[in-house]
């Protein structure tokens, strides 16, 4: 049995289904992300694990123990909230020491463990500050120290980075990963930010409308999305309706009147959804081009360019690494090419 097991978890609010038949296993020491748009049920799932919400049905097993009858305060989980939820009237040390105090840890041991926890998050010099006198990133780390100091079996992170600005968020991603690995704690992160989920976790579980729809390593979720919803939710993609047709061993993709060589697939002939990542499209010359088209939009993003190119199969988003040269402007013609394997085929008719 895995360390944390969610078995057939359901949560209904009257007629509204928040979480439906949710199954997930997490091994000891693993970092797993629950990823999904807002309202997909990921926060409800976290609240059920934390004990703040009762599941309508299903089981939560932690380390072989059924959490069903255990009240929130006895579950011994470390939780970092989106708003950090620090105690504003207590100093950093008092905040971090609160959980130990509740466990009646003697004062000298408490002091030692608080200072260890603050060392871990590099905040030992700010122990007597109040949260209001700290930056967002620092508060975040206090919240982390407070959750970790009680040596929880499981660490729950609820959108922990969403209140930070972009630059700090990237720094904290690395920091969070380091801290989690140093502490060696099994971690479940809830987020709507795909880059956060991919950067931090060993495995990503994608949720949509209360259901788990894919569970894989970040690379596989990105490269082999199970549905067109996932392919558009994780990163950018060109999603096009197409028709699959086999001629002997040759596989053709037909979009409008254009026929393209397709990738290997198990899908039967017929309508499919084609997904092509903008970074897999290369710029080339007229001779080698798969398709050509005029640039209708162009955005410069520092390390890369984004083009929207009007091709015979529709407008395609194309990403081009910044190579230090001027790229084609609006109205100019671009020649595009990609390998057949770059195209992902998904059954048509998935909700997106």
């Amino acid at each position, binding site marked *: 049995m895995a360390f944390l097991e969610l078995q057939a978890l359901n949560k209904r609010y009257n007629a509204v289904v928040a979480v439906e038949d949710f199954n997930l296993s997490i091994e000891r020491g693993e970092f797993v992300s629950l990823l999904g748009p807002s309202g997909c049920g990921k926060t409800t799932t976290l609240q059920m694990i934390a004990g703040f919400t009762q599941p309508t049905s299903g089981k939560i097993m932690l380390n072989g123990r059924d959490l069903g009858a255990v009240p929130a305060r006895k*579950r011994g989980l*470390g939780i970092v909230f989106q708003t950090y*939820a*620090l105690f*504003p009237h207590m100093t950093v040390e008092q905040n971090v020491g*609160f959980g130990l105090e509740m466990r009646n840890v003697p004062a000298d041991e408490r002091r030692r463990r608080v200072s260890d926890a603050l060392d871990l998050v590099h905040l030992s010099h700010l122990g007597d500050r109040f949260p*209001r006198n700290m930056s967002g990133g620092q508060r975040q780390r206090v919240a982390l120290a407070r*959750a970790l100091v009680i040596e929880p079996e499981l660490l729950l992170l609820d959108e922990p980075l969403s209140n930070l600005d972009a630059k700090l968020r990237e720094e904290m991603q690395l920091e969070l990963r380091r801290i989690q690995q140093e502490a060696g704690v099994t971690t479940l992160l809830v987020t709507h930010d795909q880059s956060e989920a991919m950067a931090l976790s060993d495995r990503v579980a994608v949720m949509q409308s209360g259901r788990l729809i894919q569970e894989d390593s970040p690379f596989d979720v990105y490269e082999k999305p199970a549905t067109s919803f996932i392919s558009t939710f994780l990163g950018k993609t060109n999603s096009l309706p197409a028709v699959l047709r086999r001629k002997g061993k040759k596989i053709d993709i037909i979009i409008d009147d254009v026929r393209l060589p397709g990738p290997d697939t198990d899908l039967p002939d017929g309508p499919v959804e084609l997904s092509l990542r903008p970074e897999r499209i290369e710029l080339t010359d007229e001779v080698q081009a798969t398709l050509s088209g005029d640039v209708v939009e162009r955005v410069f993003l520092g390390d890369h360019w984004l083009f929207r190119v009007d091709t015979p199969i529709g407008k395609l988003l194309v990403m081009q690494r910044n190579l230090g040269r001027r790229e084609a402007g609006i109205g100019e013609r671009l020649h595009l090419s990609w390998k057949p394997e770059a195209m992902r085929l998904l059954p048509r008719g998935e909700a997106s």
Partner: protein
Amino acid sequence: MNRNGFLALCFNALFALFMMGPLLVVIGVSFTPTGYLEFPPSAISLRWFKAILDNPDFIDAAWISLELGLASATLSTLLAVPAALAIGRERFRGRDALQALFLSPLTVPTVVLGVAFLRFLSLFDINGTFLGLVLCHAVIVTPFVLRLVLASVTGVDRSIEMAATSLGASHWTVFRRVTLPLILPGVVGGWVLAFITSFDELTVTVFIVNPSTTTLPVRLFSHITQTTDPLIASISTMVILLTVLLMLAVNKLYGLDRLLIGGEAR
């Protein structure tokens, strides 16, 4: 620096004068050496302040008002805090009705309340007693406490309490160590407002006092109906002083603007 125009400044000054004027007159009158109400005083004298000491029934009445204020403000705070917690964060049937009920003493005419209390207390045979006064005043001042506590309760981030729970705190510990400190500005502000309201309540109180439980406002009122000497001015000045000191103390502790205007509990 000067962001207000000339007209705005004039308006503000007039408004302040309008609010402060009566108080200034009362304070001025209290320093008169004469035996009648004189403003501005022809000389400065403490005659009427000394006279307070010679009128023990005023001092007794002041003590009764003080005790009544302490008791009724405390009682209503004990009622309003749990009520505000329930109304501010739970969703239950009759929640709006309950809130309206708690705030209704603000909207019922005080004369009506006075008559009602008189009848009601007579039923239990506690009319004119200190207990009766405390109960009635608690009803009158509860809206003030409830409003202020409610404002601070709704400002509390629930996840702070969840965090405390997840760290192992029981319901009571969460309330004592986290919730109460966070809503304390509202609680203290409400208590002070309740105390002041009770301390100078007249309309209702007139109906339900007897000679042994006469409060200071009632005592002053009956004194005025018989004579008009500057004694009432000197007593009023003492009351104003007491109120100002109380406000300064609260301001030092919690910041008045935050209490009365409301704002983030930080």
